[in-house]
């Protein structure tokens, strides 16, 4: 745990009171998810030294980068952060390889191009090394930005909405690539997103940020199954189940990790995440025979019952955590209390499959 990132800060940003403490282990990716204006990007900026909190401490790789009590505040260029900015912030006056080579001041001039090409090659971008950023597609820019961020052998990776500038088609592939890179680089990573599904796909842990505070922290499944506040419940929206997919007669079948099987109309193979919105999930008493068009039926145990406004969120174990939203009437009718065995059912068409 020596190379971990430890962060804490208290500061005022306009009307927002930011007060956050986090720890990220080497190789771990913590996703900070929340609505825009919640202070997520400010956390990354404080880690990188681009924003100065009133009070705070940042320690990374056994170095103190910021300690307002001790009077330490390293300049951004002396902290080794691989920062991928929201719109990638590539240098328009430089080519792809020159962007990647920007930080190679210590590398002899003649070796720079070769080093940059090696990095671009990892992202399948070597062929476009002489292209200007403005001629590249969103996905290509993202890869150049990642290669550039890795060029300085960073001690921490900071990713600000790395996928949000991409279209839906490239996003799934980019997400998979990013996961592989994070695992390979092995440094602490902080990722910011407003999309819970993205946070669930990329983060080992998810911190939900609202109003400058981490309102809940845990795995995506934990948050979705047992939201601490109504805000988190609302925000998580979908529930994520992991498993392995294969194609079968025009549909996708997923063998869930820990048991159970489900069907989706989305196309996918290999390791996947299936996401379902809790309001698509119906609860029936255990032992009832299948009827109607609902293809997915999972045996489950009720673990929690939380009221959110006019509806009730029921936390289930399938054994992976799942959640359903029902009315108060149904809750009483079905006698839903923790420990009760039920069948959770939802339609194949309501089951989204994303590669992981």
């Amino acid at each position: 745990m020596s190379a971990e990132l430890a962060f804490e800060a208290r500061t005022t940003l306009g009307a927002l009171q930011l007060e956050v403490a986090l720890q990220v282990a080497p190789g771990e990716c913590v996703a900070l998810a929340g609505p825009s204006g919640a202070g997520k990007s400010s956390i990354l900026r404080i880690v990188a030294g681009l924003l100065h909190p009133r009070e705070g401490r940042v320690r990374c790789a056994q170095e103190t980068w910021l300690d307002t009590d001790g009077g330490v505040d390293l300049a951004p260029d002396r902290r080794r952060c691989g920062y991928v900015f929201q719109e990638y912030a590539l240098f328009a006056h430089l080519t792809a390889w020159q962007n990647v080579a920007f930080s190679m001041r210590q590398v002899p001039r003649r070796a720079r191009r070769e080093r940059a090409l090696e990095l671009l090659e990892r992202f399948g971008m070597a062929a476009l090394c002489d292209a200007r950023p403005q001629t590249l597609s969103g996905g290509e820019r993202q890869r150049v930005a990642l290669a550039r961020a890795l060029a300085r052998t960073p001690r921490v990776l900071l990713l600000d909405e790395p996928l949000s500038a991409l279209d839906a088609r490239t996003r799934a592939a980019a997400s998979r690539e990013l996961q592989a890179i994070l695992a390979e680089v092995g440094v602490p990573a902080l990722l910011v997103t407003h999309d819970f599904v993205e946070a669930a796909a990329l983060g080992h842990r998810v911190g939900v940020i609202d109003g400058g505070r981490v309102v809940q922290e845990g795995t995506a499944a934990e948050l979705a199954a047992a939201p601490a506040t109504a805000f988190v419940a609302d925000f998580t929206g979908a529930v994520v189940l992991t498993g392995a997919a294969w194609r079968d007669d025009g549909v996708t079948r997923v063998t869930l990790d820990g048991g159970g099987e489900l069907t989706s109309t989305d196309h996918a193979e290999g390791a996947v995440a299936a996401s379902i919105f809790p309001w698509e999930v119906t609860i029936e008493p255990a032992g009832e025979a299948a009827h109607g068009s609902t293809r997915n039926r999972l045996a489950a145990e009720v673990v929690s019952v939380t009221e959110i406004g006019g509806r009730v969120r029921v936390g289930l174990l399938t054994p992976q955590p799942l959640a359903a939203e029902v009315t108060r009437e149904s809750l009483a009718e079905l006698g839903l209390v923790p420990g009760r065995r039920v069948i959770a059912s939802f339609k194949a068409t309501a089951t989204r499959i994303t590669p992981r």
Partner: protein
Amino acid sequence: MLFFLVLPIIAIFVGTSPRELIASLGEPVVREALWLSAKTTMMALALILAAGTPAAYFLATRRFRGRSAVITLVELPLVLPPAVAGIGLLAAIGPSGILAPIGVSFSLSTAAVVVALTYVASPFYVRQAMASFGAVDRTVVDAARTLGASEAEAFVRVVIPTAMPGLVAGTALALGRALGEFGATIMFAGSFVGVTQTVPLAIYDRFSVQFPDALALSAVLVVVSAAILLSVKFVRGAEAVGGVGGARV
């Protein structure tokens, strides 16, 4: 209308035969005026770039009280009649100006010409440079910082290249203005051959006594001005095509 705008320029070239033009350019008075104009304009331009670039960057990126008032003051020489600028310079730093008691005074010297040119031409550069610096995306500068560049290094390696088309255009505009400067120079520095008589002053000085000389000098200014205009258009065109505007990163 177009004819009206082009006619005087045509007349300058029709009025001088190429042989006459070459002969006039050989005249010592004419040669001295050309050399003096080139020298003073370059010196003024160097001063404008050296002081105007950091000033423009500061004004474009910092927010402080009275910022818009400062910007208005910087732009004032743009609309000030050149004769007024000349009188103002005399009153401020002339032989008996308000700064003369502390030793800051210029009079009837080449240095005085440079001061006058700098005064009238600098807003053309500063205005354009401010707009270009203002359009540079701040996150690009932040990106440079996280990639190990110090603040000064980020300015040199990222801000300047990104703003370059605008800086070149501003330089060309200031160059054109300095080269054609007449009113402030004649008021503040006078018109002495070889010392303060730049090309526009020489044209004025010669046109009654030696009209072909005046025409030859005018022809040179027309060519130089046209070259400046074309280079600005070329840079702007490249910017529009290449999208090196900074804001588009």
